[in-house]
Structure formats: C-alpha cells, structure tokens
C-alpha cells in the first residue's frame, strides 16, 4: 500500500511527535524536516515498520545554505515492497555540523556520508570509518562549501596558473 508524504508524516508523528516537521513541497519532493538528534531512530522506524518498509536509501546529499546558516542533509528513501517515496531533511548548524549516522540502517549510507563529510564537513557520529573519500587525506577544508577558498598550493604544486591570454 503506497503512502504519500502526509501518510508517512502521520505515522512518524505518532511515535516521534514534534521531532518530525510537516511535509513541505509538492508531490514526490515533499520533504519532512527531522531534528538532527533523532534522525537515526526515525530511519530505523522507517525501515523496520511493515507499513512503511523503506528498505532503500536512494540518495543522501548535503546542501550548503550559508544565508540560512545551516548545512542540510537530504535523505531520499524508497520502498521496494510498497513502491513509495519519502524525503527527509536534517538541518545541521553550519559552524559545527554534527548528525548521527544512518549507516547502521542502510549500508549505502556508509560511503555517502563519507562523501558529505569530505566535501561539506558534516561529522556523522557513530560512523564506523569516517574519513575522506574523494579528496586526499590531508586536504585542508571542505570544497563544496560556498565559502571554500582554494589553497594556494598543495604539497608544493600551485593550484592556479596565470592566464594564458596575455593582454
């Protein structure tokens, strides 16, 4: 029985109350905002409840909103059994973003969270192996942030060169 966002929201508020916000958005992109501390429990319920049965984490992305002052982690969940979708959004404070890990719920989250940590700097507590994925281990900074300034050089190699179009 596929549920829409409102149906999923109803089941979640029954258990978590205010920790899960009302759906915002239209159609399949309607998202529920969850407080960071409860996200792991919410995801566990979403996976294990037989009416919800979200057995697949389709996407986990981090988005930087400097003006709003938070980094948002977006979870797109899918259920193969019921063929329904839900979107969860978690807002983490931009100065020290900490979110509990969901890699214990879906193994796919393991590498996705590593990537979000690498590129945006969000620390996922409880993650078995949180280290950089795409960038080298000793890269300074988190490149996907809006205020990221590229370092001048990396191990003696300059990161920019003068313009090839001479005036």
């Amino acid at each position, binding site marked *: 029985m596929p549920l829409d966002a409102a149906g999923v929201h109803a089941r979640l508020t029954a258990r978590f109350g205010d920790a899960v916000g009302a759906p915002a958005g239209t159609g399949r*992109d309607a998202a529920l905002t969850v407080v960071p501390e409860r996200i792991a429990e919410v995801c566990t319920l979403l996976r294990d409840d037989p009416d919800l049965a979200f*057995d697949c*984490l*389709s996407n986990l992305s981090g*988005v930087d909103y400097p003006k709003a002052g938070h980094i948002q982690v977006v979870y797109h969940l899918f259920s*193969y059994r019921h063929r329904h979708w839900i979107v969860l959004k978690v807002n983490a404070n931009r100065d020290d973003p900490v979110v509990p890990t969901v890699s214990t719920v*879906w*193994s*796919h989250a393991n590498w996705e969270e590593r990537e979000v940590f690498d590129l945006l700097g969000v620390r996922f507590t409880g993650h078995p192996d949180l280290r950089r994925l795409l960038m080298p281990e000793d890269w300074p900074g988190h490149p996907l942030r809006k205020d990221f300034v590229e370092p001048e050089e990396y191990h003696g190699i300059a990161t920019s060169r003068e313009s090839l179009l001479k005036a």
Partner: protein
Amino acid sequence: MGLAGFEVEIQRQQNGGGVVTEDMTLNMGPQHPSTHGVLRFVVRADGEVMKSAIPDIGYLHRSIEKIAEKVGWHGFLPYTDRVDYVAAMFCNHGWCMAAEKLAGLEVPKRAEYCRVIADELCRLHSHLLSVGTMAMDIGAFTPFTHAIREREYLNDLFEELCGARLTFHYMRIGGVGWDLPPGFDEKVTAFLDRFEPMVEEYNRLISYNKIFTERLANVAVISAAEAIDYHLVGPNLRGSGVRYDVRRDDPYSVYPELDFEIPVGRGEVGTLGDSFDRYIVRMDEMKQSCRIIRQALRQIPKGPVIAKVPRNFKPPAGDTYVRLESARGDMGWYVVSDGTAFPHRCKIRTGSFTGISIIEKVSRDLMIADLVAVIASLDLVAPEIDR
C-alpha cells in the same frame, strides 16, 4: 573445484603449526590495465587469496558538482557528458529532466522519442564496452575487438546524429539539440538488423564458454537483500533477482508507450546473484534495447524537437530528485534551485558509486584473479564514481 585445499592451508597457519607466513599488501594501483579507469585497490592477500580489497577513489574527481554552481543551467550540459563518458546520453537526459521538472516545462513528443532513441543506442554503446572489457579481463581478447567493431557502427550513427563519438551533448533543456538527420531511421534499422544476430554470436563465442562460466560462476554472490541494502542498481540489482527497472516501475519520458521486457538473473551457472548473472543480464538487455529502438522509430511523431526555453533560464526556487535508467542503472539527480540563473546544488548519485562500495564486502576470500572479474561484472567506471 572449490577452495578446499586453500582452506586447509589457512587453517594450518592459524593453528600455529607449520611455516610462519604473513600477508602481502599489494597495490592494484591507479594505473592498471583492468581497473576500468583510475581506481586503486589496496589488497591484503595471503598468496593468491585476498583477505580484503579496499578501494581508494578520488583520482578522477573533477568537482563536476561544484562546477554546476558556476556555469549555469545551459552551460552545465557539456559537463554532464563527462560524468559518465561511456554512457553520456543518460547524463544529459538526467540534467534536462531535473531542470524541466523544476521549471514545469513540457517537452515535445518528438523530442522525447529522439531522447529515447538516443538513450537506447547509448545503452547498446555502453553495454558493448562493458561485456567486451569483461571478456578481455577474463583473458579472451577477441570478443573485445568484436564489440569494438560493433561500437564503430554506433559511433558512426552518433556522429551523424550529434557530431560526437563519445561526449554527445545531444540534449538540451526542453528537448534535443538537433532533429534526426534524413535517412537516420534506415541506417539505424540496417544496423539493428546486423547487430541482433551478433548477440547470439557473442553468446556462442564467449558467454557459455566453459572456461568463462567457470571463472564467473559463484564469484561474488550478492543476495537480493544485500543488493538493496547497498543500493545496487541496474544490471547489478537485476542480476541478484530483483525485477526493478526505472523505465518500467517509475516511468519517465515515453517509456509507458513502449513494450519491452526486463531481463533478470536466473542463476543459470552457479548461484543467483553471482558475476555471471550480472553479465548475462547485460547481454539480454542489449536485445531488449534493439526492440525499443525499433518501436520508437516506428512510433515517432512529427513536430518540434525543442520547447521554447529562455536563454536566461531561471527555474523557480525549489528542489527535485529525478531518476532515470542509465546503462549502469538508476542514476539519481538531486538538483536545488534558488531562483537564479545558477543552480544552487547538483548531486549525482550513480550506479558505479554503490557498486564499488560493496567490493570490500564481497572480496573477502576471493582470489586476485576474481577481483578483476568482480570489478568487471559490476560494470564500474571511474568517472561515475568520482565525478
């Protein structure tokens, strides 16, 4: 023909009797003939048997997602080709779908059919490379050259269609760049008439060859539950028996009007979910793609090939998540717009990314020669993993 003899040997080491040995740490480095791009595996091996193979990625990271935020909606399309240059049409299509959904654009019917034809030709293009390189990694060089020969026909067709052989940049937001050239449907039909019997020829040459099946049977068996947990997609998922295809179960474009089957692994040789199943699903998918292209060429209506889209494209603020069935499976595009001419965030979730994350788990107690077979059967391409 199991690993019985090796199990005995490993046990003797643990029991403290016999010769003292230690594991060897090998580096299957970024430059290697069969890692399908620039990938690195740190392999701890006890002789030929691996204890673990840990992937180290990032050598092909080109910050494409950050570039999206700099170059604007239209300008990002050539960059999408490079997300997965082996199957570039799908990446074009994904970005266009996301932008069109955000702006609420309606794509003309003829453009949708052109997109489907281009997509399925690209699926053939990618699968031919995948099965060819898989045969080459197992040691048979001839099927690879035959696959490349067929790909040359496809390259000629693509060159006629959009001017490029690899990075197509064929689709535009709102439609496609150019209409099908005159005589294109005859050429494509002639190619398909020649190509469909070739799939049978490959099956006779290599697919059911005893040595080939012995190399792939029971290697890296992935159950359906594991596949869903790690979010394997496409032929990787269908090889484990899960009959799910975005084109059928979450349709987009004009796929609801087309009739085709979804091949699923059957455990023909060995166990369901082994490397052979993933390989044979790709062979069967090629036949289905030929079917789709023929139908699309018959059903394509007349009309414009692109909707009216302003040059200064500014979709309203919001976010969307679209998916399409790329050659490597379900490719997800999460795009956030803030109402300006530049996207706020673009996240691409690809089939190869999930495929490589499962390698560490399935590679325990495999042999080094099997690691090569597993990488090939999961159809990993480095540009998709690193973006």
